[in-house]
C-alpha cells in the first residue's frame, strides 16, 4: 500500500522507517505558550498512531535553563530508549559552560546530537559563543540541528555557509529550511554549495509544493522529516510530507532513511 493511501485511511506507516529529526518535549519556556500534555508518554502514543519509529528530542525547558532542560530530555530518553534520541542544548551566552555541558550530555546523559536555537538565545550562529559547539560536534562525529529563519539576524540560512565550509564533514541540519518561502529559496541556495547541509521540513508555512521544489533542487538525500512536536501538532507536518508530489523512494528517504544514517554515524543504534 502506498504511503499516501495509508495516510488517507489514517493508518500507521508500520512498514516504513520514520524518524522525526526535529522534535521537542515539555512546555514552552515555563508556560509562555500553552501546550496541552507535552509529556513523553503522550508523544510516544502519538508516534505510534502515525508509525513514527524514533524522534530526536530536545526539551523546551532547555531554552531557558539548559542544564535542567537537558536533564529533562535525558529522563524521557531513559524511559523510551528505543523511541527517543536526546539532543543536547547549550546557551552561547555562557561560553565557558558550553564545552563541559556538552561533555556531560554525551558522557553522562546519553545524548547523541546537538540542538541550538540562535533566535531564542538572540545570538548569531556564526558568533564566538557557538564555536565550541561546532568544534565539539566535529570531533565527536555527531551532528548539529539549528533553528533557522530567513530574515533573522541570528540564523538566516546563508549564515551557515561559513560554518559548513569550516567543518565540511559535520552534518548540519537547517531546521525549518529557513522557515518561510524566501527562506526555503535561501536554504536551497546555501545547501547547493555545501553538501554537509541538510534541510528539515518542519514548519507551519511549508507546503507539499515546497517539499517538491526542495527535493528537486537539492535531491531527496539531504531532506529530512521533522515536526517540531509538541511545540506544534505533528499530524499536519506528517500529512504534508506523505502527500507531497514526490516518488515513494524519495518519501522513504525523507521520512526516515536519511536521518537514520546521520544517527548511525553519530553512534546511535536501536
Amino acid at each position, binding site marked *: 500500500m502506498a504511503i*499516501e493511501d495509508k*495516510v*488517507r*485511511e*489514517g493508518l500507521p506507516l508500520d512498514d516504513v522507517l520514520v524518524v522525526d529529526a526535529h522534535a521537542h518535549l515539555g512546555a514552552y519556556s515555563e508556560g509562555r*505558550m*500553552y*501546550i*496541552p*500534555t*507535552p509529556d513523553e508518554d*503522550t508523544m510516544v502514543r*502519538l508516534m505510534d*498512531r*502515525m508509525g513514527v519509529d524514533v524522534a530526536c528530542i530536545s526539551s523546551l525547558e532547555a531554552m531557558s535553563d539548559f542544564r535542567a532542560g537537558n536533564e529533562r530530555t535525558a529522563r524521557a530518553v531513559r524511559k523510551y530508549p528505543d523511541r527517543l534520541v536526546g539532543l543536547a542544548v547549550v546557551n552561547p551566552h555562557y561560553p565557558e559552560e558550553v564545552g563541559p555541558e556538552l561533555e556531560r550530555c554525551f558522557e553522562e546523559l546519553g545524548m547523541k546530537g546537538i540542538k541550538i536555537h540562535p533566535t531564542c538565545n538572540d545570538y548569531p550562529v556564526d558568533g564566538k559563543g557557538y564555536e565550541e559547539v561546532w568544534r565539539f560536534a566535529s570531533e565527536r562525529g555527531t551532528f548539529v540541528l539549528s533553528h533557522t529563519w530567513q530574515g533573522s539576524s541570528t540564523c538566516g540560512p546563508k549564515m551557515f555557509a561559513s560554518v559548513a565550509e569550516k567543518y565540511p564533514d559535520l552534518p548540519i541540519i537547517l531546521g525549518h529550511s529557513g522557515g518561510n*518561502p524566501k527562506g526555503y529559496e535561501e536554504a536551497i541556495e546555501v545547501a547547493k554549495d555545501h553538501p554537509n547541509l541538510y534541510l528539515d521540513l518542519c514548519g*507551519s508555512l*511549508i*507546503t*507539499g*509544493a515546497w517539499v517538491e521544489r526542495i527535493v528537486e533542487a537539492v535531491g531527496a538525500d539531504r531532506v529530512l522529516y521533522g515536526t517540531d*512536536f*509538541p*511545540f*506544534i*501538532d*505533528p*499530524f*499536519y*507536518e*506528517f*500529512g*504534508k510530507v*506523505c*502527500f*507531497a508530489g514526490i516518488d515513494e523512494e524519495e518519501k522513504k528517504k525523507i521520512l526516515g532513511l536519511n536521518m537514520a544514517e546521520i544517527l548511525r554515524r553519530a553512534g546511535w543504534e536501536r
Partner: protein
Amino acid sequence: MSPLRLFDANAMVGRWPTEKLAFHDLEGMLTTMDRLGIDEALVWHSLSRFYDPMEGNRKLMEEIGDHPRLHPCWVLVPPFTSDAGTVEEVMADMRKNGVRAVKFFPREHGFKLRSWNMGGLLEALERERVPVLLDADQVDPEEVHELCEAYPGLPVVLGRTGYREMRAIYALLAGHENFYVDISTFLLYRGLEEVVGKFGAGRLIFGTGMPIHDPAGAATKLRYAEVDDEAKEMIAHRNLEGLLERVGT
C-alpha cells in the same frame, strides 16, 4: 469506518501575489481535493482580497458556476463606499447566487468589524444566519469577542489561528456559543482533542486554507485525531453543513 466525508470551509481560487502556490485554478483545486479525499469546498477568490472585492466575487461566480462540489463564499466590505452596494442589494445578490457564507478582510481592506463601521450589514447577516469566516491575521481576539457578543445569532468562524494565541481562543470558545474554529491551521499540539473534550465537537470546522496552506495538513490531522468517529464526522462536514442549512431560515 467508511471514508470520512470532508467539506472544506476554507479554500481559495486565484493567484497569490507573493508566492507561486500549488495551484491557482479550479482544475488544480479539484485534482487536489480528489487526491486528499475532500468532497466539497467553500471557495473564495483571491481577487476579492488583493484587487477588488466585488470583482473577485463576480469572477468567483463565473469560474465555479453551479459546480456541485464547490460553493461560493463572497468577500464583503461595509456598504458606505460606492463600490459596495447597499445592504439590501448585497443580501439580494447573495440569495440570487446561492451564497451562504461570507468573508471579511478588515485589516487588508481598511475597516473595523464594528457596528458603526458596518452600516447594518452585520445585522442583516445575523438575521439571515449567514456564517462569517475570518482569518486571525485580520482581526484581533478583542474584535472577535465584541463581534460575537454584539451579534449572538451570527456564526463566526475563525481560521489561521496558529498555535500562539490559544489562551484567547479558549476564552472565545468558552464565552461565545456562536464562535467556531476552522482547523486549517489550528496547530496547537493535541488542540483539536482538547477542544472537543472541553467545548464539544460542535465548535470545530474542517478547513484547509488551500492552497495558501497545504490541505494535507488539516486532512491528516482530522483523520488521525484522538477523538471518536462521531466527533470526526461533526468536524469533517456536519457542523458546516448545519450552519449552511440554517441560512435564511
